[in-house]
């Protein structure tokens, strides 16, 4: 009986080893933080338009009543990766016709107007988040980030960082198509 006790350490080690082996999975990123917003309604916020840009702002109400799948892109003129991502978003809007709303994070109106004049404007609406309060509500960890919002205002997907490169684009487009398909099925059901 007492002998069994001496096996306890090796059993504990085998058990721990199993967890460690699981933890080594190459697809697992221990630093990735899942968004608490997924499958939740969009947070409450209301952003004014950017002065001098001539596009309307947006808030929770617009996202809840959009009636179709919408993208929300957090961006800023001071953000270098955003400049690279801008071309990808422009192409995506042209090819898929998806509605893109821009959450302009901590940016000066004059800077962002010049930036969009220079690069072209893929956004349907741009809200100005001068003090970063809406960014806090959305729980963003940096700029850029892109969210896919369902027609009913539920957050379906979050992409952290710029959508650049074939792998990232494919991943994002797959998520977008799934969201649009689910939307189409829901409408057909009604």
């Amino acid at each position: 009986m007492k002998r069994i006790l001496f096996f306890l350490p090796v059993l504990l080690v085998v058990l721990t080893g199993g967890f460690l082996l699981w933890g080594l999975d190459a697809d697992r990123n221990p630093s990735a933080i899942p968004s608490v917003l997924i499958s939740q309604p969009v947070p409450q916020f209301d952003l004014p338009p950017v002065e001098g840009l001539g596009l309307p702002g947006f808030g929770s109400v617009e996202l809840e009543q959009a009636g179709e799948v919408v993208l929300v892109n957090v961006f800023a003129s001071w953000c270098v990766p955003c400049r690279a991502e801008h071309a990808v978003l422009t192409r995506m809007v042209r090819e898929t016709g998806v509605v893109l709303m821009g959450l302009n994070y901590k940016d000066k109106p004059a800077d962002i107007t010049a930036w969009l004049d220079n690069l072209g404007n893929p956004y349907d609406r741009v809200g100005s988040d001068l003090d970063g309060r809406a960014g806090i509500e959305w729980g963003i960890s940096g700029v850029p980030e892109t969210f896919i919002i369902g027609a009913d205002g539920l957050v379906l997907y979050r992409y952290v960082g710029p959508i650049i490169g074939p792998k990232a684009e494919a991943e994002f487009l797959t998520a977008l198509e799934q969201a649009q398909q689910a939307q189409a099925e829901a409408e057909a059901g009604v």
Partner: protein
Amino acid sequence: MIPEIGQFALALALVLALVQSVLPIVGAARGNKLWMQSAWATSLGLVLFVGTAFAALIRSFIVSDFTVANVAENSNSLQPLFFKIAAAWGSHEGSLVLWVLILTIFGLSVSLFGTNIPAALRARTLSVQAWIVVGFLSFLLLTSNPFDRLIPPPADGSDLNPLLQDIGIIIHPPLLYLGYVGFSIVFSFAVAALIEGRVDEAWARWVRPWTLAAWTSLTAGIALGSWWAYYELGWGGWWFWDPVENVSFMPWLLGTALLHSAIVTEKRGAFKSWTILLAILTFSLSLLGTFIVRSGILTSVHAFAVDPARGIYMLGLLAIAIGGSLALYAWRAPDMEGGGLFAPISREAGLLINNILLTVATGIVLFGTLYPLFLEAVTGDKISVGAPFFNAGFIPVMLPLVLLTGIGPFLSWKRADLMGVGQRLKAIAVVSTLIALGIWYLTTGGPALAILALGIAVWLLLTTLKEWGLRIKLFKAPFAESLRRLRSLPRASHGMTLAHAGLAIAMFGFIGSSAWKTEQIVFVTPGVSVSIAGFDVTFEGTQRVQGPNYVADRGTLTVTRDGAPVTTMYPERRFYPVTRTGTTESAIRETLAGDLYATISVPASDGAAERAWTLRILYEPLVSFIWIGATMLLLGGLMSLSDRRLRVGAPRRKARAPANATPAE
């Protein structure tokens, strides 16, 4: 050419290690003296070959040979020579070479200094040590070759992470490895004893100096790392319960338990299988630490670059080393119980409680460190376990331990007289309580736990001094008599006194800087003044300074107290153009009473005024006591290590036992 010599030397070392894995242990089983003695030559050869490889690597760094990928990735031609050399162990591959080098040096020292150990036990120990060397050398050669070439070579290398370009963090890894790897010898001794089937007092005596040496190095390594974090990271803290800190702390805690349980095995022949288990587990935790740091399995500020193949290989090594040794333990250990009996109140019982508490504390740290992984595997949730958990779990276990540490040395072996001990310590208990109450009165309702802990620290300090005083009859006998006793007292005794007092003193630092720390974070423009802990700190502005491989904004802070000038502080914000990273150089005014700690950083918000800086000032009372206490722990370890009883004497008696005793099954 030189890098190839290094790689070739590593391959030859692997061959030698394979020979040493087999010959001595088979020789010990067959009673072949020549085979057993071959371990001497192979362990010397291992040091020479691995040393050659390490020298080749350092040389590649010194001449900035960017055809070697490791050099190109971790150093830069602009770096000062000193940092170029240090970069050799700044990366995963280079540090692993150092790891193996230390492993082989320990093997050689057993060959050199272990002449009083029976030939069979020594041969088996050296073979087990060679198994570990084989594991790590093959890991190095197969997954992490430090001499991989890079064709075509880049014009210049990328820099070593600027945070690591600091003297503290350069000595920190070698010391930590000395500790980690030092426990490998204790592990090898334990496995050899299990294979031999015999553990006795002499075994414990041979193991103790190695345990002490490893423990002392680990103490120094951890203290140095903590000190580095304190002045370099700019957060003003000295311990963050980060996974990688925890994995270096766990072998220390369990090694401390091992140090104490080995005393019981040595003096009384008890706790045999427990001491063996601790020896195995202490090194297992060192291996786990090496695995966690290098596999990227947990998020940490310390991790090396991650490669899944390496993780799998290391986990395999761990499974063989830890699983194998514990399975051997489960098989052989039940037969080796027995030994001195003791009463519930005795030195043995005291050390037993010490061991239980230290093991529980280690368990808490281990659980907290791996819990995020367990939870993610089971539920998919991601959490991080931080200081609140560790403080809540660890402190309530450690306080009773410290209380007991004060009493333990007064207890006699076998059966102690608790009443008598109570009589002797009554006065100290009263004084400690009074001091705690006094502090409570002075700080008017400060945190209760901190005051209790301070009282316990005072208790430990006073009881330790009293025990030492009693031994040398201080003030009880003429001074010359005390001096004579002081000289004749074994050094291990002085070592214990130093280490226990060091713990008490370090506790003052832990408690003071945690419970009574004050902090101010403000936006400042030149001329703005901040008050903290009775000091007035004025920000005078910043200026650009050019360093060897960085540019810095150096702030000037004038510190006054009641209008009288105290000092001027120069916190810096450095930028390293090659890696495009910035570091914070804190400015610290150190006094025994407390440290004034200042850092500056560029304001985070765009809304702040032009030329404004974020100034962070901390006042950390008593923090210097941590470093003083740690130094005393270190000196205590060294003092014990120099005790001649550990080197001569008792083992000779055992030499009469047949050298090739058949395992007692």
